[in-house]
């Protein structure tokens, strides 16, 4: 099993990065590798949502879990725990991937979203994410999110954005796994 490169989307002062083609039944698993997503605004959350085939808007129902792990540059603070501020219970908002990303010139966030069997018309759509960011308070912050998109309609579009302000720069590479 290997990764097959499909496409790259690059932000340039963009409110969102949307991928509306290439997500279909060709692969049973898709990975979205986002690299150095740099926000225009300090202290913002990087998020994603999907759109079901034939649907309108990025607003599918999501139930998710969220764990964060952090350590600060001053070597004085560490934590590993569940973060109830990041999860959703049948919510239709954008799912948080990383929170409080800093906007200093050297700060950004990177990670992977794995979406399983988006073309299934039998099962809900599971996703697992693993990300790291330069937290605005000068912490390294790892976020581990997982959940499912509670629809049995095929998913064929995905959107990424910060919860406030533009994506100043950064790229998202889409791969098929199989």
């Amino acid at each position, binding site marked *: 099993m290997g990764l097959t490169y499909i496409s*790259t*989307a690059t932000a340039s002062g*963009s*409110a969102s*990065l949307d*991928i509306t083609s290439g997500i279909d039944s060709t692969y049973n698993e898709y990975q979205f590798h986002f690299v150095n997503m740099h926000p225009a605004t300090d202290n913002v959350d990087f998020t994603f949502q999907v759109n079901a085939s034939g649907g309108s808007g990025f607003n599918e129902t999501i139930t998710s879990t969220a764990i964060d792990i952090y350590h600060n540059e001053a070597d004085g603070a560490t934590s590993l725990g569940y973060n109830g501020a990041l999860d959703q219970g049948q919510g239709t908002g954008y799912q948080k991937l990383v929170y409080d990303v800093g906007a200093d010139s050297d700060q950004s966030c990177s990670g992977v979203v794995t979406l399983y069997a988006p073309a299934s018309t039998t099962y809900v759509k599971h996703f697992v994410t693993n990300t790291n960011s330069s937290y605005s308070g000068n912490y390294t912050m790892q976020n581990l999110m997982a959940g499912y998109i509670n629809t049995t309609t095929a998913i064929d579009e995905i959107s990424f954005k910060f919860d406030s302000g533009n994506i100043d720069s950064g790229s998202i590479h889409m791969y098929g796994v199989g």
Partner: protein
Amino acid sequence: MATLAQWKKQIKAQNSSLTKMVDGVSIELTSAEYKKTIDEWAQSSFDQEIAANIKENGGKSPNYAQYRVEAYPSIGDQLDMQYHDSVNGTTTWADAIATVKAKYAKP
């Protein structure tokens, strides 16, 4: 603190138009999309400012548990407090925990 309306005005002033990148093509947001995005960004900034104020100064918040976790002394420090409390008959540990609980109150 700025009101929600003030945030909207400020964000609009900073972004007279907005674009989104769709399959590698930059597209200007429609007026409806623009309004929705400005509203979302303003609400997010407004909520964040309230949260930052509570984190700094304390208050009631649905996120009280998260704030408390970040504010409690480390487990090592708490054990040290409990040891000294047991030897000296003091209430350092209980006082420290009570201070955090009082600062970040359950709504």
